């Protein structure tokens, strides 16, 4: 199964293609080396033969046949390497001097190179091979000077065998290695596939196993697992949201239905009807408001609005928010103020930032202490900007802090204050859009929301 999928896999096919390409190139290089070496060795031996031949020919031309015979005999008596062969015959092919028994039949040309085996032996193939220069001398005699090239042949044959062995070995090693590598790759991919199938069949709780090798496959698996975590969280959120939407919509809808039913069965009294219709419209508006908040958050989360980002002064926006909420704070006897730097530039969307800061201030006023103190502070910090909204109210229990940014989440203590539980979800969405980090801190007593903008305006 694994082997079959290994052989089918693209990785293996690519590896094969690489092996073939590499093999052809390597073979060409080896063939060149072999041919070059062989021809180099042969040309050296040819040069030696040629030098010897020229020497003998010179002696013949200077001093005649007798001198040449003398010279050859001297050479054979010990003046020349053992593998050299010499032969001088007369026009009737009778041997005059030399260490060959008879003129080789292959050497027929007037002058030129010839290769032959030692003549006259019964088992020709095992006889030494010679390469020789032969020529017919002016007097009709024929001279042959050569050397035993059996060693050269076996040297070339050994190189050839070694080259072929290396190429074969390389090919085998490469094929085995690519099968192993591909098998490993296919194995990891199979793991991911198996997990994917398990997720499709049973649910999002499965994760791809890590091997702890911290290699690229572990990183892929880690990232896929993180993605699965995120999807699981989102799915959970969606479920939570739909549950909450159902709950929060059912309440006003039930109220409206009850009211209308009562009016339907009761008599028509102008004044009652008007109050009833007014209340129903108010409830409907609340429902519609909830819908537009949800679609607004969803729209922000699509990141479309990043296209309209400009450099804005956070202090200016925060001041406008503080000014808008000044009246509400005054009504509650709360001291709402702004501090910090005069200019804090960030890249963003003015309306959305206004909305987010307004929600934080609104929360601080609603859930803070009546007659308390709320401070909005904007500051430039190293490599970014921060805006903090601090109140001195009852705060949020630590265990609830992760939940407050969820849609429709409301603390038990504030279930009956006005609001739809979407404010902080919107803050979170706006922060995320701006690449800002939200921090929720204890300010004993009270609560501090901080938005860290890490990308300062250039």
């Amino acid at each position, binding site marked *: 199964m694994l082997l079959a999928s290994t052989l089918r896999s693209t990785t293996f096919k690519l590896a094969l293609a690489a092996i073939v390409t590499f093999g052809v190139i390597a073979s060409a290089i080896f063939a060149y080396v072999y041919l070059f070496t062989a021809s180099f060795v042969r040309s050296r031996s040819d040069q030696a033969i040629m030098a010897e031949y020229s020497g003998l020919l010179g002696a013949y031309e200077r001093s005649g046949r007798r001198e040449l015979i003398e010279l050859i005999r001297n050479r054979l008596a010990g003046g020349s390497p053992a593998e050299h062969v010499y032969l001088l015959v007369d026009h009737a092919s009778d041997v005059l001097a030399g260490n060959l028994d008879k003129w080789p039949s292959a050497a027929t040309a007037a002058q030129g190179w010839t290769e032959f085996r030692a003549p006259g032996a019964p088992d020709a193939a095992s006889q030494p091979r010679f390469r020789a220069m032969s020529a017919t001398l002016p007097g009709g005699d024929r001279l042959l000077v050569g050397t035993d090239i059996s060693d050269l042949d076996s040297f070339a044959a050994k190189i050839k065998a070694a080259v072929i062995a290396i190429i074969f070995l390389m090919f085998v090693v490469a094929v085995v290695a690519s099968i192993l590598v591909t098998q490993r790759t296919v194995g990891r991919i199979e793991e991911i596939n198996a997990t994917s199938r398990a997720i499709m069949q049973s649910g999002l709780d499965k994760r791809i196993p890590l091997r702890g090798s911290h290699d690229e496959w572990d990183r892929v698996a880690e990232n896929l697992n993180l993605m699965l975590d995120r999807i699981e969280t989102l799915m959970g959120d969606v479920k939570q949201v739909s549950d909450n939407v159902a709950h929060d919509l059912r309440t006003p809808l039930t109220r409206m239905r009850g009211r209308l039913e009562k009016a339907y069965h009761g008599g028509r009294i102008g004044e009652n009807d008007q109050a009833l219709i007014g209340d129903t419209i108010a409830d409907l508006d609340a429902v519609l408001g909830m819908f537009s908040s949800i679609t607004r958050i969803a729209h922000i989360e699509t990141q479309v609005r990043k296209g309209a980002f400009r450099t804005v002064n956070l202090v200016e926006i925060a001041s406008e928010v503080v000014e808008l909420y000044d*009246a509400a704070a005054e*009504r509650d006897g709360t001291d709402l103020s702004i501090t910090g730097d005069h200019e804090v530039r960030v890249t963003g969307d003015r309306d959305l930032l206004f909305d987010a800061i307004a929600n934080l201030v609104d929360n601080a006023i609603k859930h803070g202490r009546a007659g308390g103190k709320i401070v909005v502070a904007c500051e430039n910090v190293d490599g970014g900007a921060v805006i903090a909204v601090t109140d001195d109210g009852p705060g949020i229990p630590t265990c609830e802090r992760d939940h407050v940014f969820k849609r429709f989440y409301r603390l038990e203590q504030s279930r009956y204050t006005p*609001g739809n539980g979407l404010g902080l979800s919107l803050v979170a969405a706006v922060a995320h859009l701006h690449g800002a980090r939200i921090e929720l801190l204890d300010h004993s007593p009270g609560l501090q929301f901080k938005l860290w903008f890490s990308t300062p305006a250039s």
Partner: protein
Amino acid sequence: MTAGHRRILVVEDDPETAGQLAEQLTSSGYEVDLAASGNEALRRGASCDHAVITIDRMLPDIDGITVMRQLRDGGVAAPFLIISALGEVDDRVRGLRAGGDDYLVKPFSFVELLARLEALGRRSETIAKDTILRVGDLAIDLIARTANRRGKDIPLLPREFQLLEYLVRNEGRVVSRAMLLQHVWDLHFDPSTNIIDVYVGRVRRKVDDQQAYPLIHTVRGMGYCLRAPR
């Protein structure tokens, strides 16, 4: 808006909504032309001089914005009120940039529509050149940015003055919270809280407390109206 110029072109493709609008606008004293498509809107818009044209962004044939541009290019001077189901701010602002004069997001209350139509219709009339506006015993000085009642100064913050000025300019007409947010604060969204009410409440205390009669009135479920007793 002059009595002879209360003709409105409503471009709306949903027949029921169009019918409701026509009925309510007629009972509010407007003459109503209906157009159910972009092409019909182009024909009717060019053929008659309207006080205001309300136009839906999503029309079956031509996009509302395109219709508006073509009418403008054809010399139609009437203000446009864009009605959109695309609730997001950038869509709204895109509508205004394209030459719309005001926008309204579906679903809207008829009162809100009426308030905006009145405001738009008034804008197309000649703009008063007075630098001091008076309503009853209230006088606001647009140059000095001050307000007083019966000669007694009312201390107002700049934004409070802007709010009062907007109410005064729309004297006798209902102004919705969304209109205040849009025109006084330049904010193109609806905060979910009653913050505008609280803000108007404070302005009202400054303007109306210990006076002979109140000027700023809450219109239940709709908004505010500044008017002097008759």
